[in-house]
C-alpha cells in the first residue's frame, strides 16, 4: 500500500512511469468491450431490455438506440474496477458507456483519480466530458462493499487489473469480490505469473536494472499462477473462459497478446451460480 502513495501523482502522464498501464488499455479495454457486448447480446430479451432502459430528463423510460450503442457499446452495464489506482482502466470503460464504480483502498490514489476528473472538467468544460458522470471513485475496500447485502449481484462485470499480485489474502479477496457480480456476469483479471521468468523480468530487471518501477513495487512470492487463480474462482462458482499471455515490448512500448503466459497474463471468467437464493 505505502509505495503507491508516492506514485499517486503521476498516474496520468501518458509517457511517464505508468506508461505500461496506459498502453495495456489497448489490449484490456477492447477485450472487456467485446466480451461484454456479447454478454449483453446473449441475455434473454427481458433482461437485456432491462439493462438498456434508462430514464431521460423528462422522466420517460427509453431504450438505448442502435446508434447510441454503436457509439457507446457498454451503455447500461455496471462495471466495478477493483483496485482502480489512478483510474487508468476505469476511464476508458466509462467513456465507452459503462456505469463504472471504481474503488481503491488507497486514499491517495482515489484522490489522484478524482483530481484527474476535476482537472479535465476544468480544462474542457463539464459539458464536454459528460461521460465522467458515469464514473464514480470511492475510497473503500471490497470488504466494505460486501458488508452491505444490497451490493450483492449488482455488477455485470468486475475488472481487476494488476491488483491480485498485491493482495494478501487472495482467497478472501476473490470470494468477496465475486459476490458483487451478477449471475452470468464476467470477472476480468490481469496479473503476473509466479515463474522464474517473471522473477527475472519483473523484479530483477524492472526494479533493479531498468528501474522501470520503484524497488519494492512487487514481491514475487505474492504473484499468482493462472492455475491458482482459476482454482479460487472455480471454488466460487466462477468458471474461466479465456486466458492469454501478454507481452510488453520495451522498445516500442506496446503490448501484444501471446501464447506465452509465464510473465503477464489476462484471464476472464463467468459466474454460474447453481443455487440462487
Amino acid at each position, binding site marked *: 500500500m505505502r509505495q503507491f502513495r508516492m506514485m499517486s501523482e503521476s498516474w496520468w502522464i501518458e509517457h511517464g512511469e505508468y506508461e505500461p498501464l496506459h498502453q495495456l488499455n489497448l489490449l484490456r*479495454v477492447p477485450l472487456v468491450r467485446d466480451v461484454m457486448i456479447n454478454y449483453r447480446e446473449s441475455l434473454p430479451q427481458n433482461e437485456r431490455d432491462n439493462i438498456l432502459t434508462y430514464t431521460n430528463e423528462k422522466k420517460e423510460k427509453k431504450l438505448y438506440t442502435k446508434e447510441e450503442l454503436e457509439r457507446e457499446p457498454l451503455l447500461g452495464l455496471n462495471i466495478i474496477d477493483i483496485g482502480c489506482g489512478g483510474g487508468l482502466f476505469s476511464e476508458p470503460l466509462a*467513456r465507452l458507456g459503462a456505469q463504472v464504480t471504481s474503488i481503491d483502498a488507497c*486514499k491517495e490514489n482515489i*484522490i489522484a483519480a478524482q483530481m484527474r476528473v476535476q482537472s479535465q472538467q*476544468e480544462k474542457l*468544460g463539464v459539458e464536454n466530458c459528460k461521460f465522467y458522470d458515469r464514473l464514480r471513485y*470511492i475510497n473503500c475496500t471490497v470488504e*466494505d*462493499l460486501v458488508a452491505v447485502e444490497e451490493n450483492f449481484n449488482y455488477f455485470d462485470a468486475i475488472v481487476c487489473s494488476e491488483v491480485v499480485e498485491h493482495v494478501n489474502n487472495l482467497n478472501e479477496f476473490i470470494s468477496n469480490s465475486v459476490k458483487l457480480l451478477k449471475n452470468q456476469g464476467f470477472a476480468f483479471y490481469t496479473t503476473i505469473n509466479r515463474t522464474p521468468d517473471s522473477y527475472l523480468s519483473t523484479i530483477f530487471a524492472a526494479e533493479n536494472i531498468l528501474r522501470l518501477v520503484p524497488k519494492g513495487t512487487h514481491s514475487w512470492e505474492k504473484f499468482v499462477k493462472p492455475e491458482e487463480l482459476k482454482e479460487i474462482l472455480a471454488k466460487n462458482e466462477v468458471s474461466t473462459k479465456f486466458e492469454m499471455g501478454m507481452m510488453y515490448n520495451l522498445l516500442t512500448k506496446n503490448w501484444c497478446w501471446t501464447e506465452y503466459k509465464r510473465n503477464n497474463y489476462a484471464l476472464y471468467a463467468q459466474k454460474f451460480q447453481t443455487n440462487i437464493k
Partner: protein
Amino acid sequence: MYILAEMKDVVHVKPWYFDQDLLNVIEDELNKKFANKIIYQLGLCVALFDIKDIGDSSVLPGVYVSLSFFDDIFIPASNLQKPSRFDEKEQLFIWQYDTGESVHDLYIDIGEEIRFRVVNEIFVDTTPTGPPKKNDSNILGTSSVAQSKEETKCPYTIIGSINEPAMITLLRCKVINHRNVTKVLTCSKYNFTTSNCVRNESEGESVIKKSDYYDIVVCGGGMVGAAMTLALGQDNIFKNLKIAMIDTAPEKKDYDSPEIHNYRVCALSPSTIELLKRVGSWDFITQHRHGDVHNMHVWDGSSDAFISFKNEEGSNLAWIVENDLILASLNRNLSNFDNVKVFYSNKIQSFDQNEQSVDLKLKDDCSIRTKLLIGSDGGESFIRKQANLDVTKWDYDQTAIVSTLKLANKGPNFTAWQRFLSTGPIALLPLNDEYSSLVWSIKKNLAKELLSISDSEFVHRVNEAFVKEDFKSDLGTGIENLVQNGLDLMRNVLPNGNNLISDHETTVRLLPPKIESCGPRGSFPLSFLHSSNYVTKRLALIGDSVHKIHPLAGQGVNLGFGDVISLHECLRENVLSGTEIGSWHFLKQYEARRQREVFPKMVGIDALNKLYTDYDYGGAFIKTPLVALRTIGLTISNRVLPLKNIFAQQAMK
C-alpha cells in the same frame, strides 16, 4: 507580474469552526481552496488579498458519518430519508417514518451504523499552501471527531445519501456528528492575487478571452480538410465529439456550373470516389458534371515507345472534376451535422501544443482548445511550420500551365493523353465531348513565354507539343526498352496501379484530338515536399501540408483523400478503444500506415519526372534519359523497391 483577480465563491464552514472568528475561518477556507492552485485562464493563485464582501450565510443541515478509516463523509439533510426533521433538544435528526397508520420517530443515533451511497466527492488540493494556518486543537471541539482530525484540512470529502430506494454501492458507516452541520456563506466576494502562469509570460497579455472547446479541430478547409471534417461529421461514432473546421476562405457552398469548366480540375481515383460516395458528396457531383477517363495513352517524346492503360474491370480509370465542384459538394454537407461547426474567413494565428491539449488562437482573438488538431492547410502549411516538422523539399524548375481547351471535333472523349517531353510532361484530360483540360508542366523560362503569347499561338503550341518530334537520342535502340520500362513505372505510381493492364493490342499509336481554342490560362509553380513526420503530439497533418508532388500522375489530391480515409479509420479505432481522442498510439498508427503508402509513390513520381526531363546538374546539361537514369535514377533506385527491380532486370540484359 501579479494581478488581482476578483472572485466570488461559496464557502463551507464546518460546525467545529463555528466558535472561531468568522473572517479567519473564511480566509483559511479560501486559501485552502485556491492558494497554489492553477486556475484556468487566470494563472497560479498566490495569496488571498482581501475579502471584499461577505454575503448571507445559511446553514446546511446534515449528518457527518465515518468509515473506520475515513471520516469526511457528509450526508446533507436533503439526502436523508424523507421526511426527516432536526430535533433541537436532542441535537439529532429524526426520520419520521410513516407506517401508513401512524408516524414513528426513528432517531439516527450517534455511533449507530447506517448505510449510505456515495453521490459526490469533493476534494481540495492539499499540496503546500500559502499562508500559515492558525491551528489550535480547541477548534475541534466536537467530541466524537476530535482524535481523528489531526490534520485540519481534508483533501477529500464524500457526499453521501441514505435516501434512495435502489441503493447501489453502499458503504456501511458510523454516525459521528449529528447536528446542523456546515454553514454555507454565499456570495463572499474577494480578491485573489494571481500570477499569470501561462507559458509565454508576457505582461499585459494576461487576460485570455473565454475559450471554446472542440474535441477535433481541422485547420484548412480545402478539398482534403473539408473531406476530413465531413468524414468525421457523418460518422455516428463521432456524434458525441465536437468538431470544428477553420478556413481562411469564405464559405464555398454553391456551385453555379459555369459554361466553360474552370481550369483547376483533379483526376480522381476510384478510392477517392468511394470516399466521396461514403460522405454523401458524389451525388452532387454527378448531378452536375465530370469527365470520364476510360483509358490512358502515355508516350515518349524522343522515341516511339508508348503504353496504354485501361482498367481491368472496365470501369473508369479516373474521373475529372473541377476543384470548385468538389469543394462545393463537400462544404454544402458540413452544415448537416449539429456537432460540426465551421469557422469560415477565419484563421489560426498561433497555437500551443501540450500534453493534454492544443490551445489555438484565432484571428478574431477567439481561443479554442482541442484534443486533436488536424492540419490540412496546404503546401505552405502554417501548422506544419509552427510544429517544426522536418521536411524534404525542393522546387522543380518547372511551372504547370493549366487551361480548359475546346476540341476541334466534337465526339466521344474518354481518353487521357500524356506525353513526356524533355521540357516536362504535357497531359490532356477529358471533360466532355467538346472540352478537355490541359496540364502542361514545363521549364520555368519556357512557361513564361507560353503564358505571354496569344491564345491562338498558345493553342498552336499545344497541338505541336503532342505531335512534334522532341529530340532524337543517338544512343541506339536500347533506349526504347528503357523508355518502356520507365513507362511501366507509371503502374507503380498510378492509382490502382496493379489493377491496370497495359493495352498491348493497341499497336497503332492513336493521336490526341486537335485543339481548336483555349480558355484562360493559369499557372502554378511545382515543388516536391515530404515531411518526415505526419504527426506530433496531439497533431496530425493530411494532404498537401505533408506531401506535395508533381502533378504528372494526377495524384496530389488523391493522396490527400487517402490520408483522410486512413486517419478516419485510425480515429475510429481510437474512439472505439475508449481512449481519449488524439492519443499518441493512434496518431502513430496513422503515420506508419500512410507513410508506407505515400512515400514510395512520391519517389516514383519524382523519378519519373527526372528520368524524362533535362536537368542542369552543375553545368553539365544531360540530354538523354539514359544518362539521367545513371545519375539520379540509380541513387533513387536504392531506396525504392519497384524501381530497383526494374533496373535490376535491365542490368541483366
